[in-house]
Every structure is written in C-alpha cells, then in structure tokens.
C-alpha cells in the first residue's frame, strides 16, 4: 500500500497542522512522518522561523509628508471638535 503522508503531502499541510485544525488521525500521521524524516523536520522548523521573523518585522517607516499631513489633520481635528 503506498504511503499517504509523503514528504510532498506533508509540506502542503504545515499551516493546517500549525493552526491546530487537522483531524487527529492526520496529525498523528504528520507527526509520525516528522519523527522519521529529518528534512521534513527541518522544513517545519523553517516554517515556524518564517512566521516568527514575519512577526518581528519592524513597522514600515512612513514618508515624512504623509505623517506630517496626518498629524496636521489631527491638530485640526483637535482645534475644531
């Protein structure tokens, strides 16, 4: 019988796994595969790190003109409310 949880299948399911919405039988197979397949384990670590780094991306610096316009609008709002 061909294996169902192959490496290419596993990489499709990583977000489903991390979101905790995977049916328990599938999650068990997913974890069983990870336990015997180092590259897939590395891949999962990559994926987790990617999410972590995205979460630490600094806020984009707004162009000075944009910020000045908005802060002027704020002062204007304050003066006229």
């Amino acid at each position, binding site marked *: 019988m061909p*294996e169902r949880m*192959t*490496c*290419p299948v596993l*990489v*499709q399911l*990583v*977000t*489903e796994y991390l*979101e905790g*919405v995977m049916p328990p039988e599938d999650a068990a197979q997913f974890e069983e595969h990870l336990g015997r397949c180092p*590259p*897939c384990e*590395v*891949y999962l*670590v*990559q*994926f987790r*790190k*990617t*999410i972590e*780094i*995205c*979460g*630490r*991306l*600094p*806020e*984009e610096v*707004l162009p000075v003109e*944009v*910020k000045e*316009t*908005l*802060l002027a*609008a*704020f*002062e204007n*709002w*304050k003066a006229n*409310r």
Partner: protein
Amino acid sequence: MSDGTSASAILLSDDDTALVARLREGEAEAFEELVDKYHSALVRFARLYVPTHELAEDVVQETWMGVLRGLDRFEGRSSLKTWIFRIAANRAQTKGKREARTVPFAALASTEAGQEESVEVDRFLPPDHAERPNFWSTLPLDFDNQPEARLLSDETFAEIRRAIDTLPPMQATVITLRDLQQWSSTEVREALDITEANQRVLLHRARTKVRRAIEDYFARANGTGAPSDA
C-alpha cells in the same frame, strides 16, 4: 436598554481603551502610534478594492479622517482595529465603484486559493523514482544554523517585504494581517469576508513563498548559491 449590561465596552481591550482615551485627550503621540501601526497594512488592504497604489493611499488618508471624525462617537462595540478597517473598507468600496472596479472578495479569494499548482513540487523526486519516490530532491536549508544576527537582519526583513510585494493581493493581505499584524484567523476571515478554508490556503501559499525567499537569501548569504542537493 436595561439588559445591555455595557456589553459594548467589554469587547474593547485594555490597550484599546487606553489608546482611545489618549486620542480623545488630543495626544498627538497616540495618533502617531496608531498610524505607525496600521497605515501600511491599511494600504495593503485598500489595494484589494482599488486598481492602483496611489488610490489605496488616498483611501487610507480618507480613512484616518474618518477615524478622527468618528472618534468621539466610537462606542467600542468592536476592537479599535476592526472599526478602523471597516471604515477603510467603506471608503475603498466607494472609491472602487467610482473607479469602476468592484472586487467580489470571495471570488478573488477562491481564485488565489485555487488554480496554482501544489506548493514546493520542484523540491521532490517524482513518485515513480526507483530509490526514493517522493523524497526531497533539494534538501531544505537548516535555518537553525544561521547566525542569529542574520535571522533578524534588515536584509532579511527587506527580502520578506519584497516577497510579500510580489504575492497576489489576497495572499499579501492575509499574511500581512496574520503574521505581521498578528491578527487571529477569525479576525482576518471577518475583515476579508472569506471562508476559514480559503483563509488557510491563502496563508499557506503566502508563507510558503516567503519561506522560499528567506531560504534563497540565506543560501546566497552562505555563499552556497542554492540549497544543497540531496
């Protein structure tokens, strides 16, 4: 209403409550915090409705004006960010119609969630391979071996931004809200009016491409050219 035991206020987090109070007191720094936090995500979001980046910037400008106008009436029936993004959606819809472009989100989401081929197919041996069917042909690069300083470097951040900029608009918006802005899947689903399943597929596609961009960058930085062959 007698049974409405201030259910409205309960939805507002302590942070939101404090921020709203500071805004109402006219504290410019509080408004600046808000703008820094949401402006670029709002532009990304508005871009789903209007055809150009410039129009999206206009929408967000109008959104901030709307936020100021509505601030004294804001009752906290939703979180501050949900309220702000709703204002943006209204402005963007108005402008999108004027620009003769209305995007049915559900349609856009399912287009981006369907069609494309499976992720990472090029990384695996074919199913009929004699020795290792379906096994990795190009091993994933171990991020744990990267110097900590590189993981969180400006260059890495720039690679991520570039990768997100090249994503289809729904995928770009979903990863921005989920992973950069740390929204919950429910918040994203509601803001974009898409199904849970589509949200997850869009997020997965986006993460996969950003992951690849980081891996390629690390491989170049290591001087190995491409991730090593198995």
